[in-house]
């Protein structure tokens, strides 16, 4: 087990390093940011001075090494637009995104798992077929489309929920939260539903597959033969055993949801870090884009690692496989 973790840590470190090269070299090719920063009347000398100040006159490898050294200390440079440190900009926007994703993922598990079990218990029933067809719609329709339809229904046609921004927030320490006010919940409802529906569709499919795999097992038959109440078989014997794939998928999907928040946040003008990324890509604010991507790579690699280790911890048969 420790060997496995150390191995995975090395791999994770390698992936982060490779991705940092790719991200940096890739983004280096985007157009000259000085053309966005100086006024059109600026002289060539002024432009050169700015390039020098930003370090853009150095060779790409010198720039990369400087970048890597600074990044290791948490310094990703300053935003070309606002002059604030890029990392600080992202961290300021992070609570909004994390809050949105946690609410969306909670919704998807609370809706997806019961529906998935239902569909798995009676695969031939019309209700199960309806659930499965619904789940195809849920994860094949693009996220922004679902958001648009929800806005049309709830914000424009019914006029009951706001379609954009974050609403009233309450500060808990340095972090502003929407979930503590009614106004905040109203603003959170549509974006969280948009993000959550697609993930719920996925949870339905995972749960159904797991349920159908566990049901024919001997311990379920034995529990039935013992005359246990169906509710007890469901809540104890079944649920415990389908939990492993559900936790794994929910964990990995958490990372995906943070990435897909880019789309949801743009639709609902939710002031999270995904919206920041899109704005920065469009305005060629290179330090912010690079900082966001490196942060995401870091986060996703760590998340994968944690899910793998958790998986080892809760599934004894997976531990056996690694030992072999």
């Amino acid at each position, binding site marked *: 087990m420790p060997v496995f973790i150390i191995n995975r840590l090395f791999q994770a470190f390698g992936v982060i390093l*490779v991705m940092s090269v790719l991200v940096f070299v890739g983004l280096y090719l985007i157009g000259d940011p000085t053309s966005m920063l100086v006024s059109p009347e600026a002289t060539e000398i002024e432009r050169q001075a700015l390039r020098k100040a930003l370090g853009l006159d150095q060779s790409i490898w010198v720039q990369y090494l400087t970048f890597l050294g600074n990044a290791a200390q948490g310094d990703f440079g300053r935003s070309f637009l606002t002059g604030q440190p890029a990392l600080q900009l992202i961290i300021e926007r992070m609570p909004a995104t994390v809050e949105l994703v946690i609410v969306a993922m909670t919704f998807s598990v609370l809706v997806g798992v019961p529906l998935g079990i239902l569909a798995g218990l009676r695969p031939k029933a019309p209700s199960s077929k309806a659930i499965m067809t619904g789940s195809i719609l849920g994860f094949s329709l*693009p996220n922004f*489309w679902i958001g648009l339809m929800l806005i049309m229904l709830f914000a424009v046609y019914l006029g009951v929920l706001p379609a954009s921004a974050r609403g009233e927030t309450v500060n808990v320490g340095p972090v502003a939260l929407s979930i503590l006010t009614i106004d905040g919940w109203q603003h959170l409802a549509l974006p969280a539903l948009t993000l959550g529906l697609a993930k719920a569709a996925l949870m339905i499919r995972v749960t159904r597959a797991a349920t159908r795999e566990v049901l024919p097992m001997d311990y379920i038959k034995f529990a039935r033969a013992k005359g246990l109440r169906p509710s007890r078989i469901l809540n104890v014997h079944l649920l415990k055993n389908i939990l492993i794939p559900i936790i794994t998928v929910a964990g990995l999907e958490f990372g995906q949801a943070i990435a897909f928040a880019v789309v949801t946040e743009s639709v609902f003008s939710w002031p999270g870090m995904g919206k920041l990324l899109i704005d920065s890509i469009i305005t060629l604010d290179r330090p912010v884009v690079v900082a966001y991507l490196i942060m995401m790579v870091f986060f*996703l690699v760590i998340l994968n690692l944690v899910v793998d280790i958790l998986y080892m911890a809760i599934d004894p048969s997976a531990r056996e496989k690694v030992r072999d």
Partner: protein
Amino acid sequence: MSTPTTVLPTTTVEEPPFRRFVVQFKENRLAMAGLILMILLAIPAFGAPWIAPQNPYDIGALDILDSQMPPGSVAEVSGITHWLGTDSQARDVLSAVLYGMRTSLLVAFLSVTVSLLIGATVGLCAAYFGGWLDALLMRIVDIQLSFPAILVALVMLSVLGQGLDKVIIALIIVQWAYFARTVRGTALVERNREYILAARCLSLGWRRIIARHLLPNCLPPLIVIATIDLANAIALEATLSFLGVGVPVTQPSLGMLIANGFEFMLSGQYWISFFPGIALALAIVGINLVGDHLRDILNPRNAL
């Protein structure tokens, strides 16, 4: 004493696989509906230049007086009936949807075809040769698949810039890995079958074994993935164009049409976004219904 001529009963003669496939496919009404939907959307989309009431790319033909008209109104200047209304630049929404669908389908079809070719080649080679080549290729695939498709595509487009060709390249980079992994999985099983061994014993070249023996037997899962991926490509392209980093303004796809109408939706002019949105959803749902059923009948575990 039995006569030797009656030994072969004619009932065991097997149907050709393709006909059996067609019969199986027709059994599912939902999948047939999906297929018909796909055809009904594709024909007018590719025939758009001939059947659309107006050429939405021709700025000169547009009159700003006709802008933002609700569905069913008749234009005062040109006399065209705008069944689905007009947008803020007086474009006929129906024509824009037809042209937009054409762009969306074209991008999706091209990107899926190329990623299928790349992915299948990589997957087959990895499975056939194994060893370090397999380890290296699959490591790359694993790393790429651990990053969300939308982020990879966003990064690619922010590097490449805007344009129809750039979007297609970004989609290929996102998608090839799925094909590679699926093909490798199937090919690993097939590689150890007797017919591959027989081909090797005949000392056929590896190119021939891969292309003529291994590839045909890996086709069923490839077809399934390619079908479903077509829907994913349409959805991803629409998302990127909606975010403003996809196709250029001069060749709006469905996603960009939806983005253009978004600001007008909040003031009640729903039709500018709504109809492109419905067209997009129908295309994606139609393809998925077909793909889902294909998966059921082409899965070897379900075969007799």
